[in-house]
């Protein structure tokens, strides 16, 4: 059973463009919805996270949009930069300190 589905698998965007990654989940007990960024040879690092009491959260160029009824949340990267080239994972959980259920990942390439 695949609890978390992430799309697209890969994405190429021009510098300055917008990257959009989607995550669909099945477990209604999830209460914490983070996005992690991973560079080659490194562990994942928390980028931004949202809790279900809000529908949108923005931190700099990164925005999470959350749709509880559709059981989906998305990551928007505005003004994409070459340094944003990485793999992005959604990893919903019952709590930040609890077991994270990772999606399959989206490899983003930002072309200069």
């Amino acid at each position, binding site marked *: 059973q695949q609890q978390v589905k992430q799309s697209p698998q890969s994405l190429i965007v021009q510098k300055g463009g917008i990257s959009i990654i989607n995550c669909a989940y099945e477990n209604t007990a999830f209460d*914490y919805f983070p996005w992690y960024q991973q560079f080659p040879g490194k562990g994942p690092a928390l980028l931004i996270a949202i809790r279900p009491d809000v529908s949108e959260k923005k931190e700099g160029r990164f925005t999470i949009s959350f749709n509880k009824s559709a059981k989906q949340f998305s990551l928007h990267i505005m003004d994409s930069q070459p340094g944003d080239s990485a793999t992005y994972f959604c*990893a919903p959980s019952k709590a930040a300190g609890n077991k994270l259920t990772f999606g399959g*990942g989206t490899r983003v390439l930002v072309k200069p």
Partner: protein
Amino acid sequence: DAGVTQSPTHLIKTRGQQVTLRCSPKSGHDTVSWYQQALGQGPQFIFQYYEEEERQRGNFPDRFSGHQFPNYSSELNVNALLLGDSALYLCASSAGLGIYNEQFFGPGTRLTVL
């Protein structure tokens, strides 16, 4: 302030052998979780340790076992290695299990089973 550290960085073993991976949590953290990340896939939760006890376990066989020490560091042991155990093993630490206790990941140990 040191983050999460893991050792060794890389490891090569043969089928049937046993391996021990080590993790030191971020300063102030008392909870350690282990994840397995196969090439090109998302990390999969193995288990979590808090107060020296296994609190949660993912869908991994008993060949995978762990331990947490009084200083909160942790070990992951894998017995009877299979080729499919080749992966990046990630350790994450947090200051507890709660809703606000963000997990911080180490750089991982790359295990290759031949």
